[in-house]
């Protein structure tokens, strides 16, 4: 009897593994789909990853719980017809000890050696899930890397504004629509002619030196005789410079400026 209980414990473990594998594959699909959907919203990148991860975690735990509750030995029997009806009969009569039940347990143990957990995994469904996941991944890459210009949808709920890039201070687009005023005049800030440029070409000439430099005429420097003229013999200051009103005004201005700084 202990051996048959051990057999059923093994069967339960195998069924649990199958449930986890199937739920894991479904969770991956859910994550990619949720990521794809949230990437259309105008929210910070952290939340674009966090929301799908949370949804996936909830899905994983819920799905696992539901699948475990629905788990029946009939699943194993359907996948392995050689133990059809034997498995659940042995399970329901596990505590009975007589010749017939012992014979049943003996035969069941013999036949269970030829069963395989692989039969429980439906290969077609698994391949479909993998292909779907790959398609969604490529779709995500296509949308993001090729810079497909889709309209970013802002979150309409006020409590969730913290997720928007720029924080809470960013006004919601679409809020207070009545205050929007469209400039229907020709008055613009700056030079009005600029606003009217439209598709006209602008000729921009850049002349940094105010003279034309011909790089072909550049030669080695020549020695100049500075004594022949150009250098003043005497250096003196024009006394009129100190008597001009301009200088006085400038001095007064400097004094006032210094006083102001001092007051501060």
């Amino acid at each position: 009897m202990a051996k048959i209980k051990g057999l059923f414990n093994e069967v339960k473990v195998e069924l649990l593994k199958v449930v986890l594998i199937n739920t894991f594959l479904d969770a991956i699909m859910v994550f990619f789909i949720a990521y794809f959907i949230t990437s259309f919203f105008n929210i910070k990148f952290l939340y674009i990853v966090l929301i799908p991860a949370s949804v996936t975690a909830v899905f994983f735990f819920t799905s696992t719980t539901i699948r475990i509750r629905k788990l029946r030995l009939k699943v194993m029997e359907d996948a392995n017809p050689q133990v059809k009806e034997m498995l659940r009969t042995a399970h329901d009569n596990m505590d009975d000890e007589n010749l017939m039940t012992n014979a049943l347990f003996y035969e069941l143990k013999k036949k269970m050696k030829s069963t395989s957990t692989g039969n429980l995994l439906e290969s077609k469904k698994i391949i479909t899930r993998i292909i779907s996941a790959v398609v969604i991944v490529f779709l995500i890459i296509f949308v993001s890397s090729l810079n497909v210009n889709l309209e970013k949808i802002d979150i309409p709920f006020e409590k969730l504004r913290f997720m928007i890039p720029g924080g809470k201070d960013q006004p919601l687009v679409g809020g207070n629509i009545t205050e929007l005023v469209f400039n229907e005049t020709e008055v613009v800030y700056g030079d009005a002619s600029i606003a009217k440029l439209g598709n006209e070409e602008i000729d921009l000439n850049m002349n940094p030196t105010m003279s034309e430099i011909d790089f072909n005429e550049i030669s080695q420097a020549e020695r100049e005789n500075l004594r022949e003229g150009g250098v003043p013999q005497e250096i003196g200051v024009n006394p009129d410079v100190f008597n001009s009103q301009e200088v006085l005004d400038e001095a007064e201005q400097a004094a006032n400026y210094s006083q102001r700084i001092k007051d501060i």
Partner: protein
Amino acid sequence: MSAHKKSAGRMKMAKHIDSIRNIEKLKDTFSNVSKEISKIIVGQEEVIEQILISILCDSNALLESYPGLGKTTMIKTISDVLDLKFSRIQNTPDLMPSDIIGTYVIEEEKGKKSFRFQKGPVFANIVLADEINRATPKTQSALLEAMQEKQVTVGNQTFALDTPFFVLATQNPIDMEGTYPLPEAQVDRFLLKVLVNYPNFDDEMEIINRFTKAKADPKVRTLLSKDSLKLLQNLTRQVPIADDIKKRALEIVTKTRTKKDLIEYGASPRASIGLILAAKAKALVNGRKYVSAKDVEEMAYPVLRHRIILNFKAEREGKTPDDVIRELMK
């Protein structure tokens, strides 16, 4: 662990494995029994199987058949193969209970007279009660009491019947005039109602060939002893059944009580017990160590057909009990 204990453990394991291997051979055993019976009886495999099921369940069967279909020969052959004592009771309206169970007779020995109980035909292992519906209700009740109690009481003395004890009662579906149909409460005591149909063309050709060329008197071998049969009866009750299949059997029986549009009176809990037992016996006869859902569905017909009473609407539509049972199982 001492050597003595180890060897005792090994012997126990070997005996255990031997017992299991013997059970593996059961299918061959029943197959050989059917082959031996088929030396005399052509066809009727389903009837023979249902009679064997009744015997394994330590219960009784009601056979409904037209005359001349080999009922007596069949049951006589089964009793020879199973090494069981056979007796036949031809029921007539003037049959008395003492004709069945026995009576006291006066004997004289050495000038002294004494009463001696002369056992009736009921003191056998297999009793064929032919045309039970011809006997008076008083005679029927004497036989039914023997069936139920496995003993007979004469005067103030009780005589136990030999085990295994099996009664196969027959009824003729035609020629019902001047008969005393068994009341429903008594019919309920029979585990199965077996229908015997005419053989098909090939089988009847075989019958002609066997019994018209020369006076055939084939002998059959005894394949099972009385003790083996008792062991098989114990094994039948030990056959395990899954809970959901047990539930399915109970659902079928309870539906007979709720389907008021076709059934006037449904089956009793005796039918639930009978269905599970019959399914276990069917599994054993087929060499399986567990009851299958198919066993329950196949045995539902012989177990339930004599326990349900159809209403007027069903009879007007020409429905038979088997048709109604088929609808219940959908």
